[in-house]
């Protein structure tokens, strides 16, 4: 996006000066619709939606873009980004994206999935789409909980973490262990770029945007599957304020799900990770 410099003037600017188009320093990308988002205050979805909308606009690929919305809080992603969308059944987005991409090889196809969707009910679909090296982008929002259905345990729920179905904390004897599925994905030769990001700080947002841009470019260059995990908060599910959620995420989620690139390679090569 082209940022315009604020005109510096002697003395004070009145409100009418500030509102002049030449003084514009930032504007909402036109690909984000004006539909009010239903997400809770502090939720990471809005930020990731904005980054995607900006990138699709900046990279000039609106006409080639087909998004696959998940079951979960982001089911209404199609109301917010002004591109063609398909809504997938729970967990099936990678198969849906495979179908779209195979018969439309020049399309930019991406899925947008949560941890319950991708790592639990859709574990088979994501593994096999990545293993085939489908030419798609997967955006994986990991907040360690099922948000929409009321805060139940997800495969990525941390040990001891309280959810609606682990009211005394996740017990690994009963529920197994929090799953680092992105690390598994990075092992698959079909993937080209696998990374884990977070958007709880301004720096994180910039880094995540860079990662998503690279991931999208990989898809446009037909390099195989690109996979971007975004470690996220769910303040209503976690029962914390947005600020406290960010702090809790930094102190608990990120040590278990460390940020950074796991694989930056080309399709067909195994990760060293």
């Amino acid at each position: 996006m082209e940022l315009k410099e604020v005109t510096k003037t002697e003395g004070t600017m009145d409100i009418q000066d500030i509102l002049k188009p030449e003084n514009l320093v930032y504007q909402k990308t036109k690909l984000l619709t004006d539909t009010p988002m239903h997400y809770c205050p502090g939720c990471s979805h809005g930020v990731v939606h904005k980054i995607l909308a900006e990138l699709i606009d900046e990279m000039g690929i609106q006409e080639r873009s087909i998004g696959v919305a998940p079951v979960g809080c982001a089911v209404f992603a199609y109301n917010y980004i002004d591109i063609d969308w398909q809504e997938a059944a729970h967990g099936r987005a990678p198969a849906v994206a495979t179908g779209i991409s195979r018969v439309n090889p020049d399309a930019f196809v991406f899925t947008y999935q949560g941890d319950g969707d991708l790592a639990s009910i859709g574990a088979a679909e994501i593994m096999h789409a990545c293993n085939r090296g489908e030419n798609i982008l997967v955006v994986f929002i990991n907040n360690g909980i099922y948000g929409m259905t009321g805060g139940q345990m997800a495969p990525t729920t941390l040990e001891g973490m309280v959810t609606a179905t682990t009211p005394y904390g996740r017990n690994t004897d009963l529920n197994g262990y929090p799953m680092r599925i992105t690390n598994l994905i990075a092992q698959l030769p079909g993937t080209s770029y696998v990374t884990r990001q977070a958007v709880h700080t301004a720096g994180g947002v910039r880094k995540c945007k860079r990662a998503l841009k690279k991931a999208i470019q990989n898809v446009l260059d037909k390099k195989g599957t690109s996979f971007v995990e975004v470690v996220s908060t769910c303040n209503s599910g976690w029962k914390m304020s947005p600020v406290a959620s960010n702090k809790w995420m930094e102190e608990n989620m990120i040590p278990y799900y460390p940020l950074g690139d796991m694989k930056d390679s080309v399709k067909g090569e195994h990760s060293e990770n």
Partner: protein
Amino acid sequence: MGEIKLMKGNEVLAEAAIRCGCDGYFGYPITPQSEVMETLMVREPWKETGMVVLQAESEVASINMVYGAAATGKKVMTSSSSPGISLMAEGISYLAGAELPCLLVNVQRGGPGLGTIQPSQADYFQAVKGGGHGDYKLIVLAPSSVQEMNDFVDLGFELAFKYRNPAMILADGAIGQMMEKVELADYKPRWTKEELVEKNGDWATTGKPASRKKNVITSLEMASNDMEVRNINLQAKYRKMEEEDVRYEAIQCDDAEFILVAFGTAARVCQKAVEVAREKGLKVGLLRPITLFPFPKKVIKELARKTAGFLSVEMSAGQMVEDIKLAVYDAGSNARVDHFGRMGGIIPTPTEVVEALEDKFSWELSYGVKRSY
């Protein structure tokens, strides 16, 4: 005359798909229909017509691949057999809910459970009553020959796109595995991107140009009122199918006192049974529904007014017989409706069918046919 070949029913499905301009096939191996994907992989249609063929990791995935590709307005299909279709039920419900055209093939085997790999017709209810969750219908075509396996691929796509609804070819293991002479269709080119946008671009996710609003394929409505409107529209569409696209074949029904009703493999058996019965002096006809949904209710109602009885002959415990009973009831007729079937993968013989008719309608045969009016 098109090219004539001796082919298996399953092989013909593959050949017909390539020739009718199909854009993609997504499947998972299961007996007795694995030859469909095997034939496609040998033919490598992506080199010839550009048709995509992909082996999915499961039936759950393959039906969702169909969903994704169908939503872009392309002609896509899958095939499977009974247990695989059960796995696809979720996806089929989504396809019907989102009103997406596609072609599904069920080469039925015996159930329930893992059942048997031998032919069966026990998925009738699953095919014609919906099969997955919610109020929906598929267009269901029942081939009784290898030739019809060929013809119904193109017809299935035609109907699917006419109504923006999934169409299903409900075959069985016998039709899939038998070899017969078949006249193949001429090649039809796949739709170009321009043709596709012209035909389906107002609803399909073809990529949003500046000139139109974004297209969203979904079956979700949060407001009950909106969801009811969606359902009302679906039901109106299903009624339109019942008005415009019922297909059946009536054989020697004009003077018949008893009508055998059968589809698919059972109809072939019944065609012979009609001959056997007629040789015995029994006035028997055969009604063969070709569309199982929309079901040929109207012709059954008409026949019910001049026939003593219907015998539904099915390779199941009796499923279509319920739809015949409903039609006869609607007609206000006294004609009696009964069922004869074999299960577990057994195909009845013509003699068995005639014996069953004589047994089940012994009263009418002993005391004279009681005309409804």
